[in-house]
């Protein structure tokens, strides 16, 4: 019992620190990548190749002046960024990060909590994501913040639908809500081969749910100053900005798990290594997939211009939603005939 408890706490701490670390360095990779695309160097002053830049950014945010508007709703103003941060970290609980590690006869699966409703849990947490932004935007008592919050919430509600239907067609195919089993079923072939359209829809919706370009209208600086975080400063602002990168990391992990075989490496059984080493290798392979998706997120941001708001709504409701519905129906028919 006590061993089990220690292992769980250690696993949770590792995943938490890893998410924070990866999110930290995702900011640096983003700036470097932006530099590459715009034909300049990007940050290169702090440390060799600028690898201390995220640390400097963090320190800067911590020591900035805390500012709170006079007319703000004090409690909700503080609750907003905290909620956003908490919700973006919550999803990592059900993602299977690897197989099982066995030490001295005890088996330790590399998943914090496995339940029979993993995928629904992810839905639930994703649908909670909108509250942090809405509460923060409303509590600031600023028209730009409110407009940003309203935009964010309507955008997230609209894209949740298509995202849900895309996942539903995967569930229909695999016949399970458990992520562990979804991964296990993909040993021979990845889900993306059978469900390319579902993956495309899921990826576009993930961009919209994480408020990334080309869907970053809630913080559209040309029209709304800073959107929902206009009135925020110091580490409260840091939480909002940082949670975007954690969301990117987690949604990359979900995409890798649902569509790209999770921690399964092709031909891994032929290597003839010990089971523990194979598990670690699988986890490393999962992280390679996650990093590729993170790069894709960043690449899209610096390539595509922002949508207009009516275009965004049109894309969500008139293109993605019917496509996801058709995909679901076709999957249903194929599963019935099989």
């Amino acid at each position, binding site marked *: 019992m006590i061993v089990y408890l220690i292992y769980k706490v250690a696993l949770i701490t590792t995943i938490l620190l890893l998410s924070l670390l990866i999110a930290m360095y995702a900011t640096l990779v983003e700036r470097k990548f932006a530099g590459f695309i715009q034909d300049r160097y990007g940050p290169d002053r702090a440390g060799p190749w600028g690898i201390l830049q995220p640390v400097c950014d963090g320190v800067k945010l911590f020591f900035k002046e805390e500012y709170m508007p006079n007319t703000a709703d004090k409690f909700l103003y503080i609750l907003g960024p905290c909620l956003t941060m908490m919700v973006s970290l919550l999803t990592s609980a059900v993602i299977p990060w690897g197989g099982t590690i066995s030490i001295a006869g005890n088996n330790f699966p590399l998943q914090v909590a496995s339940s029979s409703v993993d995928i629904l849990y992810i839905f639930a947490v994703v649908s909670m994501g909108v509250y942090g932004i809405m509460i923060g935007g409303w509590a600031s008592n600023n028209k730009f913040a409110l407009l940003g919050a309203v935009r964010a919430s309507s955008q997230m*509600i609209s894209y949740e639908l298509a995202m849900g239907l895309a996942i539903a067609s995967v569930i229909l195919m695999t016949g399970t809500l458990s992520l562990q089993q979804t991964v296990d079923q993909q040993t021979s072939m990845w889900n993306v081969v059978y469900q390319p359209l579902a993956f495309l829809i899921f990826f576009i919706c993930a961009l919209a749910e994480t408020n990334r370009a080309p869907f970053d209208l809630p913080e559209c600086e040309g029209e709304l100053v800073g959107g929902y975080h206009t009135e925020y400063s110091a580490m409260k602002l840091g939480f909002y900005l940082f949670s975007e990168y954690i969301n990117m990391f987690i949604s990359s992990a979900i995409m890798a798990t649902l569509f790209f075989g999770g921690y399964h490496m092709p031909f891994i059984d032929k290597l003839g290594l010990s089971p523990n080493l194979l598990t670690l290798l699988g986890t490393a392979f999962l992280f390679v997939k996650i990093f590729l998706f993170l790069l894709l997120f960043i690449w899209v941001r610096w390539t595509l211009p922002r949508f207009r708001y009516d275009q965004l709504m049109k894309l969500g409701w008139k293109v993605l939603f019917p496509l996801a519905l058709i995909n679901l129906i076709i999957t249903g028919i194929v599963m019935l005939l099989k």
Partner: protein
Amino acid sequence: MEKYIFFTLSGLAIFSAIMVLVSKRPVHSVLYLILCFFTIAGHYIMLNAQFLAVVHIIVYAGAIMVLFLFTLMLLNLNLANELRKSILARVTAVIAGGLLLVTLVAVLKGLDASGPIMANTQIGMTTNIGKVLFNEYMFPFEAASVLFLAAMVGAVMMVKKE
């Protein structure tokens, strides 16, 4: 252990339900209602009904309350322009609430709480719910879905200009 979790959840549920009523600002009321939904979802999990718990959060806390909050934010209700109800409306509300209390008490009085109520503890799992829903309750389920579809089409028609 389970007893403590139950009492914590119940206390929190009752506290948040009361706060929904006594909060002065409508947005606070909505947020307390969301907290209340979460505590109820916790109760579902304790009854081994994971599917129900998660769907409860997705539908109520994740969709319906977002729309509530959305509307309240746009309305921007202040303490200053709060509607004052007339005496007649208040008296009617008290009588209606009292009648509801009488009904609830009457229902609970006839309840036999001596033995465990739930016979099948696995009924809350997704597979079992699906089997029951699509075998025994096939017709009501489909009828409800048609009703929802009709409501959705109606909503779209009302929004559409001409």
